[in-house]
């Protein structure tokens, strides 16, 4: 136990994802040693982000203002939505330069074991966008793990009867990897999703 303010800082840091009590202590003492203006820059960045950045009212991406950069960009292809779990997944998809449509962030994934059901995700908000935005295709871009797959299956079942095209990102082998290290599930799905080679 340390003096009040130091203990408070350690406890706050310890609440961050991936930071255990030992790391929290280490970071706290690092901050104590830091020149004042460096530490205050961090404090300001936190304040700034909490004051200026909110969630986009349309897609739930991070936004400065009402709608995010993607939603207000008129050059974006309309009619297609890429559904992701978290705003950081948008960054990952954007880096591919392969997608020109807009997004919808669910703010999580279905996880029965954590008690997280569809009602805790931005699913109703997704359904509400389909008609006004004349969406014809929804790409399910949730993580290829058990929660992401459950979420994709749930959404597919919900969306297909509405007559739109519902696609799921393919699972396959990482480029640059070795086949012999691939697990059977990934390799099996990669085989299923094989394409004809254009020569």
């Amino acid at each position, binding site marked *: 136990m340390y003096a009040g303010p130091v203990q408070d800082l350690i406890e706050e840091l310890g609440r961050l*994802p*991936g930071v255990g009590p030992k790391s929290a202590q280490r970071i706290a003492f690092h901050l104590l040693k830091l020149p004042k203006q460096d530490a205050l820059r961090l404090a300001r960045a936190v304040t700034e982000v909490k004051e200026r950045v909110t969630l986009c009212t349309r897609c739930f991406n991070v936004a400065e203002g009402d709608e995010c950069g993607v939603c207000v960009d008129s050059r974006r292809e309309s009619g297609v939505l890429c559904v992701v779990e978290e705003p950081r997944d948008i960054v990952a998809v954007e880096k591919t330069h392969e997608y020109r449509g807009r997004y919808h962030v669910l703010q999580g994934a*279905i996880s*029965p*074991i*954590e*008690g*997280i*059901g*569809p*009602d805790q995700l931005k*699913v109703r908000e997704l359904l509400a966008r389909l008609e006004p935005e004349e969406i014809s295709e929804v790409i399910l871009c949730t993580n290829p*793990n*058990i929660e992401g*797959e*459950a979420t994709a*299956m*749930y959404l597919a*079942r919900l969306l297909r009867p509405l007559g739109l095209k519902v696609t799921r990102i393919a699972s396959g082998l*990482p480029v*640059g*990897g070795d086949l012999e*290290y*691939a*697990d*059977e*599930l*990934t390799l*099996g799905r990669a085989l299923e999703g094989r394409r004809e080679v254009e020569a």
Partner: protein
Amino acid sequence: MGLYRERGVVLRTIKLGEADRIVTLVTEGRGKVRAVAKGVRRTKSRFGARLEPLSHAALLCYEGRSLDTITQAEAIDHFRPVREDLERLGRATCLLEVVDAVVQEGEADPRLYQMLLGALRTLAANDAPLLVPAFFWRLLAQQGFRPVLEHCVACGSGGALVAFDVGEGGVLCPSCRHGTRITADALGLLRRILGGDLVAVLAEGPLPAGPELEYLGTRALEHHLERRLRAVGVLDRA
């Protein structure tokens, strides 16, 4: 601190640091094992899907002070038909949650382990709408909480039985009734599940008594485990 080999089913995983996960498994020889899988969240991880919940794997681990570390994992079964069907995945998750609540670290329970594997294999072969209630009640019986179903648990009357009380661990007649109402259909189904008729029960389609027994089984397990079970019904909440 040594190296050991185990077979196990992954029950749950939680993120650890940047790219690792703590994997909780039920194993054949050591009961619950919690072990770190390093780098498992990277897309190029050599573990791939082998340490995802629901995977049955052969592992090589080394013991640590608080957590073990998984150094190798080979898949035995991914139960792919279960993974790729929302209904079955929902059922399987209910089993994983309850096994996680029952199994203890360092206490092997080979029968529980076999029960889980058997249930997952059943589900992989065909969907079984009554699997979750059947598993819950068989598990209660296996853990020493076999309910009294033949006569009133309070007065011994063998006439009409209309209620079930989790605290008393059995059914009750109209004059002693307390706890939850139980229908004759549900009582009949429960007797079949705990009698010798499990295979036929699992081959049945959805029955109205199924959800009733699932609800009662959940309450009974929660009562004995002294913790809440969250997975039942999550997918139906929209």
